């Protein structure tokens, strides 16, 4: 009796269907996967204040005003421009290499103000925002190369902070004009 049982136990489990099961799971994960990681433009919103404070008088030379109207036209400092030029304009404004009187004396006091219309397309607004952010990123990169001869991305946190104090990112968003 015992002998018989022992013989039975030696039977192997058929692993032939293993591949089928694995394939099934594989196809499931293949279908549900979204490989492109979720990315976005990081923005810090100002805290909400039910009674908007009276805007303090800012020296006009420190503010780069970017306006996007309901026809998605870009106005920089009252002059017609376009999104493609915005990056260079912003960089030149912040650094003010020619020491112009209508641009800030130091990058520390530079402010970029964006105002859009309620009918502005989100895509155009985001492009403009992206260009201004890109301008700051490029300036930080240049500063990092000049000071530490390293890429900004590779710097430790305290060095990044130093650069950001030198060229602070200040983007102010005015309440959109109603149409």
């Amino acid at each position, binding site marked *: 009796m015992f002998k018989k049982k022992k013989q039975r136990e030696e039977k192997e489990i058929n*692993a032939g269907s*293993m*591949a089928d099961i*694995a*394939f099934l*799971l*594989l196809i499931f*994960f*293949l279908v*549900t*996967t*979204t*490989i*492109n*990681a*979720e*990315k*976005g*433009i*990081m*923005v*810090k*919103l*100002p*805290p*909400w204040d039910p009674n908007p404070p009276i805007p303090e008088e800012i020296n006009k030379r420190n503010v780069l005003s970017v306006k996007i109207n309901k026809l998605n036209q870009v106005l920089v400092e009252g002059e017609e421009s376009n999104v493609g030029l915005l990056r260079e304009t912003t960089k030149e404004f912040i650094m003010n290499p020619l020491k112009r009187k209508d641009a800030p004396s130091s990058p520390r006091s530079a402010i970029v103000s964006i105002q*859009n*219309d*309620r*009918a*502005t*397309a*989100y*895509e155009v*607004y*985001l*492009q403009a*925002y*992206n260009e201004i*952010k*890109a301008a700051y*990123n490029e300036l930080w990169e240049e500063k990092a190369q000049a000071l530490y001869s390293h890429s900004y991305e590779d710097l430790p946190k305290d060095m990044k902070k130093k650069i950001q104090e030198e060229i602070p990112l200040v983007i102010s968003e005015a*309440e*959109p004009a109603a149409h």
Partner: protein
Amino acid sequence: MSKFKKSAKKKQAQVSTASLPDIVFMLLFFFMVVTVIRQKEALVDVKLPKASELTKLVDPRKTEHIYIGKPRRSEPNAAPAIQINDKFVKKDGVAPAISGSGLENETVALKVDKGVTMGIVTDVKTEIRKANRLKVQYMAYQDVVD
């Protein structure tokens, strides 16, 4: 003649399929690790815009997602709607919807269709500020640098 007969007699060597499960399992584990399963059913159509200055979401699972776009299966010029979790939300319902979720200090990811106008986006931004959630990311696809 005899030569041909001999070769015909020989049994063809079979390819061993014993390692097939291993290969498949390896692929399976790869996809299991990289998968982020979509838990939320999209009620609105969102085509993200492109941008270049992007930051990765720290933890997509711990992020509040707000979708703004045209409702699915609606007329072509329907007004855009706001979706949070699995529900449509009115403009003034955004702040309550994102304040009671246990993700208070986390980022809010705005997934906005590129055809939407800024009016509704501004209203949602105001609501987010009212809920005191100031870290926001405008989700976008990576633009290829030319």
